[in-house]
């Protein structure tokens, strides 16, 4: 008997409450009664069922957290636990084994004592589970009974049920705020801890990044993040955009201005597939196919080239970004008033002259907004750079050399041995904070640019 089972039982009880209350309400509405009830029988049913289920489920959720601690306390206070080693790690291991044994998850154990503790555990678990079940059912009965006695022809069941639904809707929409708050607080909290060990000035202006080799206790010269910022900008905002802006913009122009409807109907979804391919696939493609080709190219040009080049990651990322640029450009070109286009064509301009001299300048704010969104997308992209860009924190403008990015380093710092108090781990959250703020700023600016421009034509 576990928490889901108890919750299921409570729900079953709620179903019967619903049936019973609906039947009673239907009787209230019988033709012999002079006055018609305020609400339909179904709403009476829902009212009672909600009273039966909601408080009981809240209790079950609370009990699920509480009972773990109660069980552990009971076991630790038992006679058999007196001989447990005081050492934390070993004790936890024995307790976990005993728990597994008691709940039937495992059969074999490595510690003798676990065998001894298992029956104690089993007793405690069953005691607290039955206790929880009892209280939960009691609460469900009490709630249901209270609501049931209130049913009468004058009772406004629908209003009350709708009030609960409204509260549910509001709660659901508050989760978005909670998530934003959660992201912000967890990043701020860990970053503050990081900046109590490493000075923010050094973090933001230092040019040496080597957290792996940082001696414990000393953070001097290991957490200068400038090479990471440069690598991120170099790959995401420079190389990727050199690929994505011309290709995306020209694709959008061709599709909106030149292509026949049939070509457009086929090519547009095809371009959107590029945005739907998982980034890990791009990363693998970049590492397996593009990177070796680029290295060979670099060597044949006589430039020192590395297998994990900025160019490989940037090129592939640029291709990934094409659909974003193209669809934003598409929207903003379509929003240019037809009169402007007609005017230009009537003056004798060719189509391409109209596009270059009228449509694109008029659509420029929207295109710029789209490019900003694309940049924010590119610098937050993780898998392509993790798989193709390398780990060396170089401050170089050579696209054939290996550079590293903010996201690569976050992954690198958080996937090894983890101690949550070391500056190494906390640095990942500080990098995350910078990334979050920069992408947020880019998005806000981009949306504002787009919005301002739209208003100009409406």
């Amino acid at each position, binding site marked *: 008997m576990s928490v889901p089972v108890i919750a299921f039982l409570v729900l079953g009880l709620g179903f019967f409450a619903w049936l019973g209350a609906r039947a009673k309400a239907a009787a209230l509405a019988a033709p012999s009664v002079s006055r018609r009830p305020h609400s339909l029988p179904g709403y009476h049913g829902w009212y009672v069922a909600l009273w039966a289920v909601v408080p009981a489920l809240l209790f079950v959720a609370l009990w699920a957290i509480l009972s773990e601690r109660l069980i552990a306390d009971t076991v630790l206070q038992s006679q058999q636990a007196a001989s447990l080693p005081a050492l934390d790690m070993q004790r936890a291991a024995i307790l976990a084994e005993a728990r597994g044994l008691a709940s039937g998850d495992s059969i074999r154990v490595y510690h003798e004592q676990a065998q001894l503790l298992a029956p104690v555990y089993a007793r405690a678990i069953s005691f607290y589970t039955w206790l929880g079940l009892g209280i939960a059912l009691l609460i469900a009965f009490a709630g249901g009974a209270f609501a049931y006695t209130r049913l009468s022809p004058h009772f406004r069941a629908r209003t009350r049920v709708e009030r609960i639904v409204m509260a549910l809707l509001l709660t659901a929409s508050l989760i978005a705020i909670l998530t934003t708050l959660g992201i912000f607080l*967890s990043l701020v909290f860990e970053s503050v801890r990081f900046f109590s060990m490493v000075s923010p000035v050094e973090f933001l202006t230092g040019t040496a990044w080597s957290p792996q080799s940082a001696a414990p206790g000393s953070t001097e010269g290991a957490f200068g993040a400038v090479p990471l910022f440069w690598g991120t900008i170099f790959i995401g905002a420079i190389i990727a955009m050199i690929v994505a802006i011309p290709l995306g913009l020209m694709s959008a122009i061709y599709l909106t201005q030149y292509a026949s409807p049939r070509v457009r109907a086929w*090519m547009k979804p095809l371009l959107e597939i590029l945005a*739907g391919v*998982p980034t890990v696939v791009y990363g693998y493609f970049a590492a397996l196919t593009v990177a070796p080709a680029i290295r060979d190219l670099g060597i044949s040009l006589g430039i020192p080239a590395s297998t994990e080049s900025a160019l490989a990651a940037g090129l592939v990322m640029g291709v990934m970004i094409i659909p974003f640029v193209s669809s934003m450009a598409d929207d903003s070109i379509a929003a240019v008033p037809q009169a402007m286009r007609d005017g230009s064509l009537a003056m004798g301009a060719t189509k391409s002259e109209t596009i270059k001299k009228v449509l694109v300048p008029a659509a420029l704010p929207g295109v710029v907004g789209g490019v900003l969104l694309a940049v924010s997308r590119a610098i937050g992209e993780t898998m392509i750079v993790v798989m193709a860009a390398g780990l060396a924190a170089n401050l170089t403008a050579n696209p054939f050399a290996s550079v590293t990015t903010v996201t690569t380093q976050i992954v690198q710092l958080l996937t090894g041995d983890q101690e949550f108090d070391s500056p190494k781990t906390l640095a990942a959250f500080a990098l995350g904070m910078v990334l979050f703020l920069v992408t947020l700023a880019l998005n806000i600016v981009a949306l504002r640019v787009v919005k301002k421009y739209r208003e100009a034509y409406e």
Partner: protein
Amino acid sequence: MSEAAPIPVDPTPTDWRDPAMQKRIRRRYRAERRFKLIGLASILLSAGFLAFLLVSMVANGMSGFSRTELRLDVDLRPLAARLTPQQLAAPNAEDVLAQIDFETIMRTAADAQYGERGSRLFSPSGRLVIRDALREDPGLLARPAQLWLPAETGIDQAAKGHGPPELEARYRQLEGEGRSRVSFNAAFLGGADATDPTAVGIWGAFKGSLLTMAITLLIAFPIGVLSAVYLEEYAPRNRWTDMIEVSINNLAAVPSIIFGLLGLAIFLQVMHLPRSAPIVGGLTLALMTMPVIVIAGRNAIKAVPPSIRDAALGIGASRIQVVFHHVLPLALPGILTGTIIGMSRALGETAPALMIGMRAFIASPPGGVSDPATLLPVQIFLWSDEVSRGFVEKTSAAIIVLLVLLLAMNGLAIYLRNKFERRW
């Protein structure tokens, strides 16, 4: 305005037959054609890149679905002294079989039949094939058996044309003797991660993805739809509503790795949920998918014409009844389309899963939502790090599976949109 400078007018009329003018027109038309060609070229380049990506994945990956097998005569009769058919039929047959050293049986037989070091031709996972054969057919305790066992990765690659010349020669020789064959690699679709490329499978990662997506859907769909309803139908225009809207729009644009950091900090460090478990992955991805569903849901609800609401209100429905009885059913196809697109994006996400520890080596499929698991894209990432040539085709094969899955989901979304979408 009246003081605007007069525009200077060129008094000579335009002579279209003038050679200079003709030249100018030709130049302008050439520029026009050039511009159009550049547009066509850029779109073909993008499409060509997509085609190149897909073709190279298929070319690399198709061979991952087949494997080379070698024939081996195995004599299990000596086991009859320790094992009876009844034991094999008993419920604890697994434990009994686990105590038998099938590896030595395989090595001895292979060395005897393929010469000195013959056992090196076989994949270590061959012992599992012998074990399963015995479990399937306890009669093997009484007669000699002829089994097809997977070849080791070098021979397997040589058979597919990627091996060094000496191994390819060896394979040709085996093929000539009729002791090898290429068959469908069922273990790849049914197994979990392993250290040997001939033994790996994607079912473990697939199941992990399935469990994670189930949690994501269960959480993100109700919350997303309810908040979309609230924001579109009921929310008063005030500062709170603005805050909710701003945070939803921002969440939709936050990099996925930030959600991974959130999951690490909140779900693992604060709430102490199990590491690497689908429940944590599902919660993290749900927070990421929810804004997508909200935005799609709001657009779908907005598309339902106000006359429907007015008609329902007019015959006495309450505001809740209007939405839940009329607006929501009409908006549902649009909401579902958005949900599927959001889910397919979540299915391809790797970075957040890496943050919450779903990158461990996990050799058995997860049994439940709190078991350690890995995801399909994470499995691709893990295999891509392996050096052995055998993993290249497995990685590409896993990518093919993932892409087919995504294609199916997006196809479903497009079908739903075309079938149920109504233009009012």
